[in-house]
């Protein structure tokens, strides 16, 4: 085998592939060949690096230089400078957003520095399509140990002692789940993986499946041995083609190597694994619905008990674990329960992967110890809120997707653990964090998530099917100026009815975004109803836009940006908005660098300056 002096890691997660990282990879190979460096520099495709906002991402080892947003046309220059002359190219390196300081080394960039990688330990280091890479990083040693040298009781004890709880949302202790299934006597049991990640703004599981598919498979082998299953399914939504592709390659490679399938490592233990592609219905992430879907039936939840661990797939005892939970298992087997518990809090052990989206500088995928505060995630890792100079600041974070709730700025020091998040009214969920700044309307946000759950309700229980629709109609009324006194109370009452009357988690959690926004932002609901005023200017029918003549510099930026040409004025003199022409699109507000746009209530005829006092 030839030796390479440097490895050039090209991120091939879905985010970077979308920004043409595969073309960049080809360009590198071509350029290196042209320069006669193809035997010295190896180009490797990796899974998601996590820093999706800066893609396509390239890291160079051993120098550990981190390049961002590399395009095909940058390649020849980069090869010449970095690989021929040995001068890392500063202009392609990461720049700290507020100070604009260039940070060459990956480990010094705050986004990476504050993370602890356990589940994502192989991200950016291995080629997910090569089993040898995974094996070199201690891959399949844990499953080998579990299959050849451990009893099911021993495996369950380690997992129970580690305190790991399901990463899919509910936080049920994994060891307890395995134990209750192991106790069942049956001719057939199933070990399944839930990769039906459907929350808007969540991409943790997809990234794990893409970056380290073998870790998920290895976790499943260990689980299968623990519960006595010989057959398993990975349920992945068909919208994740790259994850499906890499999982299939991984299953084939592991089976060929005798690490999966019949007589694993000549131990006599069999475990066959198959991928089942779901059609993308949100409700199929619910365990009983998911199992019906695999059986070929309509994906609708059923009443529990019996739990899936007693009667799941085809009525047989079945364990269903989340992708991230399974990917954490091999390390727990190798390093022990105490190692896992050494991070996190007493009741929420280990690390958790989160996807950061929305109003945050560093959009991407991160792994942090449980118990880190939201503030640390927002400012240390997330790099704060974009547009700080235009007065944008953190307002709230929606955790747990449409099933979760929002956590306001006043609770920003809440530690991220299952218990603490639940106390705020939100849920940990699978780890999607959608950030909002002070230009987001919370009523509109609640409406967005309700639209999602209304669409995705399977229709089995009327409280969910009909109730969410009525709630959505009420929220539409509120955002379009038809809100009435008493609407907030109706929303609250309906919420409790839906929670009480629904069978599964979808209905039981659908009202959460509404309840938490009412709890923390009741004043916004009230101003929508009483004053017909959306103070952040999102709900078009509840706003009038003005220019603060004392602040306006007459730069003309808003005038150029206005799509309906409603702004007039001379250069360097305060501009004015013609109300008859204005369509309340808020473009001027987003464009103005001097915060001179005043947002008033619908059809406001008074003095705009009086609004500033409010």
């Amino acid at each position: 085998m030839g030796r390479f002096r440097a490895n050039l890691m090209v991120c091939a997660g879905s985010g970077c592939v979308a920004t043409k990282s595969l073309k960049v990879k080809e360009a590198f190979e071509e350029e290196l060949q042209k320069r006669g460096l193809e035997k010295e520099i190896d180009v490797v495709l990796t899974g998601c690096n996590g820093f999706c906002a800066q893609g396509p991402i390239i890291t160079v080892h051993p120098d550990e230089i981190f390049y961002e947003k590399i395009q095909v046309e940058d390649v020849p220059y980069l090869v010449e400078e970095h690989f021929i002359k040995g001068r890392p190219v500063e202009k392609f390196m990461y720049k700290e957003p507020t100070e604009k300081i260039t940070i060459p080394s990956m480990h010094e960039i705050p986004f990476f520095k504050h993370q602890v990688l356990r589940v994502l330990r192989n991200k950016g280091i291995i080629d997910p399509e090569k089993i040898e890479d995974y094996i070199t990083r201690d891959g399949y040693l844990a499953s080998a140990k579990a299959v050849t040298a451990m009893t099911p009781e021993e495996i369950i004890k380690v997992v129970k002692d580690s305190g790991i709880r399901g990463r899919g949302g509910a936080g049920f202790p994994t060891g307890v789940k395995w134990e209750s299934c192991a106790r069942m006597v049956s001719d057939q049991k199933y070990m399944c993986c839930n990769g039906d990640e459907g929350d808007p703004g969540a991409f943790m599981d997809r990234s794990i499946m893409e970056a380290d598919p073998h870790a998920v498979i290895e976790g499943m082998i260990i689980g299968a041995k623990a519960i006595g299953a010989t057959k398993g399914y990975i349920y992945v939504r068909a919208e994740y083609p790259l994850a499906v592709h890499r999982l299939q390659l991984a299953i084939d490679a592991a089976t060929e190597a005798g690490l999966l399938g019949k007589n694993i490592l000549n131990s006599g233990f069999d475990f066959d694994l198959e991928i089942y592609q779901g059609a993308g219905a949100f409700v199929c992430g619910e365990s009983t619905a998911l199992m019906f879907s695999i059986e070929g039936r309509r994906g609708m939840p059923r009443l529990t008990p019996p739990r899936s661990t007693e009667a799941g797939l085809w009525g047989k005892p079945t364990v269903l674990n989340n992708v991230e939970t399974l990917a954490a298992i091999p390390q727990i087997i190798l390093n022990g329960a105490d190692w896992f518990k050494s991070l996190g809090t007493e009741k929420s052990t280990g690390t958790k992967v989160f996807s950061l989206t929305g109003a945050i500088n560093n959009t991407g995928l991160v792994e942090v110890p449980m118990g880190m505060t939201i503030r640390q995630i927002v400012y240390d890792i997330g790099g704060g809120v974009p547009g700080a100079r235009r007065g944008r600041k953190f307002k709230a974070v929606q955790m747990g997707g449409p099933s979760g709730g929002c956590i306001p700025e006043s609770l920003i020091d809440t530690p991220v653990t299952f218990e603490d998040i639940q106390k705020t009214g939100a849920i940990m969920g699978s780890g999607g964090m959608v950030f909002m700044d002070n230009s987001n309307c919370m009523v509109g946000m609640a409406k967005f998530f309700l639209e999602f759950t209304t669409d995705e309700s399977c229709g089995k229980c009327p409280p969910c099917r009909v109730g969410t629709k009525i709630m959505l109609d009420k929220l539409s009324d509120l955002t379009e100026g038809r809100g009435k006194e008493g609407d907030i109370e109706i929303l609250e009452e309906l919420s409790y009815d839906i929670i009480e009357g629904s069978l599964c988690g979808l209905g039981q959690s659908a009202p959460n975004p509404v309840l938490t926004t009412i709890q923390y932002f009741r004043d916004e609901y009230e101003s929508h109803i009483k004053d017909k005023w959306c103070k952040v200017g999102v709900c078009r029918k509840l706003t009038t836009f003005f220019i603060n003549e004392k602040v306006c510099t007459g730069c003309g930026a808003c005038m150029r940006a206005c799509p309906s040409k409603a702004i007039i004025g001379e250069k360097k003199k305060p501009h004015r908005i013609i109300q008859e022409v204005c369509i309340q699109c808020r473009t001027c507000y987003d464009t103005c660098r001097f915060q001179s746009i005043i947002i008033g209530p619908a059809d406001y005829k008074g003095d705009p300056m009086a609004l500033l006092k409010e």
Partner: protein
Amino acid sequence: MPRLTIDDLKKIKEEHKATFAVREGGCRAKITVHMGTCGIAAGARTIMTALMDEMAKADVKDVIVTTSGCAGLCSREPMATVEIAGSPPVKYVELNEKKIKEIFDEHILKGNVVEKYAMVVGSETTY
């Protein structure tokens, strides 16, 4: 791939260790070939190629080779800096294929500084 045993897993790990030493960092020794314009003109490429050959032949897994720009002493190129973890870096000057092979054997593999080719031990002070 044929069916594996647990020993095979360990063997694969051992075989690929060198590649991962490059990616994970944590190597025992690092050789920097100075490849500024002056270095390249003086023949740094042959030094690099020779070094890569030696690395492959010796099958070392904990040594990395990298490049850097001009070291500022253009008249004495080709140059290379050898750093062994825990000891100060040593700069070698006016290298050729034979010299770098000798340095590789003596300094990298056996840990003895080849004084006859060395210019200086240590680095410039940087602030």
